[in-house]
């Protein structure tokens, strides 16, 4: 299973991620997920989320998730990008792509990975309002 993980302060560049995709002729399904910063957090209007990560641990924990994923589903490739720092409303903080032979396993693996990431990746977010906080 090909695996790729990036934690970055830069905006997620979907177009270049697409350009970097390589799929074998055995791959029948590609599932992509984008998690976007919404304009409200707990009912209050915000302008951005400030993400903080314990990066070394995020990388280790997501590496463990990739290990489990590779054992549980016949995934050909998984790529995950999490943006940290200030992410404005309307922009993605998370991008995940799973390539697999069939769609059921691609969807299952992708959803599982996001659920687990939210459970174990040491990342935190702070809502930023119009006034700065």
């Amino acid at each position, binding site marked *: 299973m090909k695996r790729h993980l990036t934690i970055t302060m830069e905006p997620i560049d979907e177009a270049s991620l697409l350009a970097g995709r390589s799929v074998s002729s055995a791959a029948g399904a590609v599932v992509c997920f984008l998690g976007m910063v919404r304009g409200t957090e707990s009912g209050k209007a915000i302008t951005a989320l400030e993400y903080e990560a314990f990066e070394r641990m995020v990388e280790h924990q997501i590496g463990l998730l990739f290990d489990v994923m590779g054992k549980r589903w016949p995934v050909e490739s998984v790529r995950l990008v999490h943006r940290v720092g200030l992410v404005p409303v309307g922009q993605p903080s998370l991008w995940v792509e799973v390539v697999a032979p069939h769609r059921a396993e691609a969807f299952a693996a992708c959803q599982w990975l*996001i659920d687990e990431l*939210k459970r174990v990746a040491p990342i935190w977010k702070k809502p930023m309002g119009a006034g700065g906080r």
Partner: protein
Amino acid sequence: MRVTVCFHSWFKDMAGCSRAEETLPPGSTVDTLVARVLVRFPKLADAQRSMLVAVGLEYRGRDCALSDGDEVSIFPPVQGG
């Protein structure tokens, strides 16, 4: 033994610092360390129930034995994604 404590997210604000050193007796566990930390940083007491602990890069329970040189991270519930 000496361990380094790292605070993340708003635990850092509560503690007023991102790192602290602690010297513990041999045989100490995460529990020993957390008790020590709560005395030294009393503002963290309220957050005790939602506190997560990692030793190195692994999540560990309160009964985990510590070793000299360990880096112990203490943080609130995670919110990635």
